[in-house]
């Protein structure tokens, strides 16, 4: 690996900007994501910034199973993000549909709609797990 790509990799690791998108979750994962921003966990110390626009974000954090109404909007938001971009499925529902698998208004996990780079299990995924999951995703990029 050349020096330049090493530097680029390093920068990507140190500066993950995230976008949070709720695809039909039960609130549990969402309050845990917000909890990760409050003083006890403070995500900014890892360089994580919560961004409001998909153009600025590197990682999209999706929580909840994809409901029928939300799936087209999810794809649109994903398309607005710039490469390289990663999808992180937060919680069991986002990973596989979870307990909502088979419900008539639910498509399933995030991976039925988008390519998912990391699955963070848990119902809900705790703030620590969310931080750990994002960091693991970043470390895997090193290779």
């Amino acid at each position: 690996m050349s020096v330049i790509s090493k530097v680029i990799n390093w920068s990507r690791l140190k500066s993950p900007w995230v976008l949070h998108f709720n695809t039909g979750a039960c609130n549990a994962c969402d309050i845990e994501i917000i909890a990760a921003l409050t003083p006890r966990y403070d995500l900014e110390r890892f360089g994580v910034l919560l961004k409001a626009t998909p153009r600025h974000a590197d990682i999209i954090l999706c929580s909840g199973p994809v409901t029928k109404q939300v799936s087209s909007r999810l794809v649109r938001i994903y398309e607005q993000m710039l490469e390289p971009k990663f999808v992180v499925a937060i919680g069991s529902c986002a990973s596989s549909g979870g307990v909502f698998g088979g419900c008539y208004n639910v498509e399933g996990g995030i991976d039925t709609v988008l390519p998912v780079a990391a699955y963070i299990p848990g119902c809900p995924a705790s703030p620590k797990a969310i931080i750990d999951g994002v960091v693991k995703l970043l470390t895997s990029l090193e290779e």
Partner: protein
Amino acid sequence: MTDEEKIKQELENKFTYLKDAVIVKRKSRVFAAVPLEKFKHVFDYAVKNLGFDGLCAITGLDLGESLGVIYHLNREGRLTLNLTVALDKEHPQVATVTDYFPGADIYEREMVDLLGIAVKGLATGQHYPLPDNWPKNDHPLRKDWKGEAKHA
């Protein structure tokens, strides 16, 4: 005599056809099966004379051969009176109770969408909870609904 039994007695005295149709399940739970054509009278009496001043919810049911609607009334938050009405499956229709409880609107809309029970007198308005583009005559809570295949 407990309140529950008093209500049972009053209902049975007032409406003879309710004899044996009122059941006290346990403390503060009274169930009554009411014929559809008499429902308005019983409901009116319960609200105006028996003091049932709250509507917890309205439940729509698919009982196989017929459909059903349960009105869950409560008195001062305590005693619950559940009035069950059986409906014809071909042309299910009930009258709205929004003139008694404006808040019933949302429960009735839910019945319309999920079970296809027509509500007479309900103001035209939005769908709830299904999306606007949901196919007509497609009611997920019906037992014979096989929507999974249709929507997959």
